[in-house]
């Protein structure tokens, strides 16, 4: 039973980690900066799930508002002050 749980935990971690890598890649590739911020938020929420699986709920509680709420808000304010689309 414990072995099954361990394998399940590791499988979840691998899934979240690989999804976060994909989201990070998309965030870098994206020319539309607002969409890049959304991809970055998806990557951060995957990290939050990883913290939850690793049994760190204190970190999850601060990671979700900061990474999904506050950092995108700061970045959106900054994007508003420059241009939305990245040039070639």
């Amino acid at each position, binding site marked *: 039973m414990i072995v099954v749980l361990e394998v399940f935990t590791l499988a979840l971690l691998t899934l979240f980690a690989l999804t976060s*890598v994909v989201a990070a890649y998309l965030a870098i590739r994206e020319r539309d900066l607002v969409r890049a911020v959304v991809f970055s938020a998806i990557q951060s929420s995957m990290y939050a799930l990883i913290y939850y699986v690793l049994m760190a*709920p204190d970190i*999850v509680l601060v990671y979700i508002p900061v990474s999904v709420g506050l950092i995108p*808000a700061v970045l959106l*304010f900054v994007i508003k002050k420059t241009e939305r689309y990245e040039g070639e």
Partner: protein
Amino acid sequence: MVTKIDVFVAISIAIFVLSLAYITSLGGLGPLPPVDVRDIAYQYLNLTYNPWRRFLTSFALESVTAIIWDFRGLDTLYETAVFYGAIIASIALYRGVKITHSRGGTGLSPIAKTVTRLSFVLIPTVAASVALHGHLTPGGGFQAGSIATVVIVLAIIVFSRYFLPGHGLSKERALLLRSIGLLGVGLTSIGLLLISFLLGVNAYIFQNQAKLDAPLSYPSLVDDYTLGGSLLFFNLSEFIAVAFGFMIVFLLLSVSEEDVREVVTRD
């Protein structure tokens, strides 16, 4: 539109990440941390709530908050000081910029406003519960403060940047409230010391419960409800300080570029 290069890059990144994880799990990038509970972790877990060793325990049910605000309280005080300094720096950068509430910023559509009004009640409730139960369940002052900041950001984005100052929460008042929160952190950390001067007994900075040579302690139990001594006061003060500190930053960030340029080029 997925090109061949995209697929190639994605597969190579996946192989890189998986091989790095495999090397790390074998101990290739430095020694692996031990799997079993280390001695200091055992002590922290053992002493978080331990009525049989009442000169060492913190009488809280949540060990992370006990470590953050009691066992390693001085570290957290300095972290709070760093946060305080960062906010002061951002205020100094925007010195002279006024957030007037005369110009007509109307915000987003009535639908967005109605939905956001609901969150004006719900999110602060969650934040207050995270702060007040910080010594019982996962959470604490910083967590609650950053959750509460989400509602402030929503108010600025959905209702325009003049909404909060127009309703009595100006930048100056936020600074005042934040200072009150910091004062709370400071007073809680030296509270028992101040009382000990009056009573003429021994006490320490960041003392929560009574020690062998220091008899004073914060209330740990009120009518069967665990208070965790100073942890509740620390969490509340940090909640206020963090929420209004972030609020100042976001109010300043939301000031339009023209207003800032006007002030900067004037000097």
